[in-house]
């Protein structure tokens, strides 16, 4: 609810134009720093390489980070509620290969998608129950399920990449709608959806409160455990959708799908301005963080930055991006 931060604490402040107010609100929000970094980066790249600001390059770049962004929105929800989900990479992989398995074994698109969503639901449920009802630390539980779900990925694929999906499944990953790739549409839909859930719906509000002060939430009679389970299920679902789209986009279900993505996904959320302390964050943060890394990767390729220096640049930009945010935050601290 960053839009509601600090406003109107000064009673009787002169009425300013709504637009100005909205801008100030945004400037004070935790996403502003990363947005500034993304914009800066895009401006620099536009000047540095004339291929950057082309329609094709932009939509392909958007598609390439959409999978991470979708999963990162789920991760962001988990972080808001004060948890963490390390299993997301494996959930992405498992959902992807399950859909691939079904589709390449002649099942239609709907059963394949349902299969992937089921994977997301069940894995999220398992994480959520162990954490909320079992009282185990999220880091450990999801570290354990990270291994377990990856093992299932190996079992499903048997080590063989699965191909030959139905055309409508492929379309989900590779198709376009009004010139925009489907995964980007889906990312945008979830972005809007999650933003509504977080800002306007009870579930979102409860999540912020639980992450902000779990004790207070419990004493206020919030169904803390149920909310937590639900949030992990949503994160599982978002991870599954990300993985499904990734596999559909690549057209292959491989056992390495999503391997090691947990760090990328969580990093996207955190770079976007979500605090791991919980109680704070937005869907926009997750998209922004994923976008920063996606645009950066694209820029490094376009500029032909040497292979040894790529990681150096990535690391430096991550630190710079949050430093920008830090300076912004100091400005009105």
């Amino acid at each position, binding site marked *: 609810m960053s839009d509601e931060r600090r406003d109107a604490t000064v009673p009787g402040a002169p009425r300013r134009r709504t637009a100005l107010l909205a801008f100030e609100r945004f400037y004070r929000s935790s996403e502003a720093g990363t947005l500034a970094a993304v914009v800066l980066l895009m401006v620099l790249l536009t000047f540095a390489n004339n291929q950057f600001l082309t329609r094709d390059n932009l939509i392909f770049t958007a598609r390439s980070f959409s999978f991470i962004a979708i999963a990162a929105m789920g991760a962001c929800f988990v972080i808001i509620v004060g948890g963490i989900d390390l299993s997301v990479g494996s959930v992405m992989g498992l959902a992807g290969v399950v859909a691939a398995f079904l589709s390449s074994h002649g099942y239609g698109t709907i059963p394949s998608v349902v299969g992937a969503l089921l994977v997301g639901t069940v894995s999220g449920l398992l994480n959520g129950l162990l954490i909320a009802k079992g009282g185990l630390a999220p880091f450990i539980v999801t570290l354990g399920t990270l291994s377990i779900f990856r093992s299932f990925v190996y079992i499903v694929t048997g080590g063989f990449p699965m191909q030959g999906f139905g055309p409508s499944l492929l379309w989900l990953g590779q198709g376009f709608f009004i010139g925009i790739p489907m995964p980007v549409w889906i990312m945008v839909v979830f972005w809007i959806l999650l933003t509504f859930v977080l800002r306007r719906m009870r579930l979102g509000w409860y999540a912020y409160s639980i992450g902000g002060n779990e004790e207070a939430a419990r004493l206020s009679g919030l169904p803390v455990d149920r909310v937590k389970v639900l949030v992990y299920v949503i994160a599982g679902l978002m991870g599954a959708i990300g993985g499904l789209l990734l596999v559909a986009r*690549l057209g292959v279900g491989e056992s390495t799908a999503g391997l090691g993505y947990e760090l990328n996904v969580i990093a996207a959320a955190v770079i976007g301005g979500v605090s791991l302390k919980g109680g704070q964050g937005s869907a926009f943060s997750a998209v922004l963080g994923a976008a920063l890394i996606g645009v950066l990767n694209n820029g490094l390729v376009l*500029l032909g930055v*040497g292979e040894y220096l790529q990681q150096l640049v990535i690391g430096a930009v991550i630190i710079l991006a949050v430093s920008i945010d830090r300076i912004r935050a100091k400005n009105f601290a």
Partner: protein
Amino acid sequence: AGGQNEAASSKPGFLNFAVVAKSLNNPAFQVAEKGANDRAAELGDVGITWTAPTNADAAEEVQMIEGFIAKHVDGILVDSLGPSACGAVNEAIKAGIPVVMWDSDCPDSERNAYVGSDNFKGGYAAGLLYAKAVQGKGQQNVAILTGTPGASNLQQRDQGFTKALDDQQIPYKIVTTVPCYEDLAKSVTAVEDTLRGNPSINGFFFDGPWSLLVDPSNLPVMTSKVQSGALTVVSFDTLPPEIQYVTNGSVIGLVGQTYYGWGYQGIQVLYQIVKNHLKYPKFVNTGLGIVTPQPEMVGDQQSITPQAMNQLWSSFSFKEKPLLPQDLH
């Protein structure tokens, strides 16, 4: 390595090629890069951007290829991180950019050619070496060390290996396949623990170089079992640290790919396709590099001695003759 040709790229007729490797962390790719640069220098009007995904992740590789498509390079050499990367190869072709695969192929894609060797054949060659060494020694209980479970190029090597044993009528059983997730420390622990846990194992096939990239002192159980004649080991790849294991007799032989050829012939083939519109067969075989204590024929391939291989590595004087379509049949 990359980027130095931006200025030259404006010259008419100058070609900008992009090379996507699997990773940065392997001398094989260094040699390949040298091969590519050597051929580019010989040709004179080619510039190379050499790059690799930071995380060995196929989706990241796809993004790189898309980046090169957006950049409108004149041709791309791609080392596939898995079938997942293959869709992007087709996109490049569709965008009118010729693509030549190297090291790892996308067999079902529209790529113009594949330059490299066949993983199955490599495994088969390793199997032949193994079969020759254990001929008449009775039942073989073989363990396999692999990288990431389910990686398809490794699985092809394993299949080639077992096929050779079948063909040579060796009585054998694959007792276990241990993964090391491409981590050297894990690989030596895995090999040692496997041998310690199951003393009946008398054969080991490493479908990648990992546990031979380290000091021999890491493999005491393996070494002592080999010395007592109770174990036969054959491994993939012919990277510098591995050679000593042939010299000291721990390993009966190494089967590797021609790393230099990947780059050298890759650029050659791509150049000829782009510049001169030559037609190559889909599979441009660069052959295998096999190292055995004494030169011998393994299948249809001639092996070389560890000394000869070491000589190549230390002088970095790998040589290739540029292949033209008529050289291949």
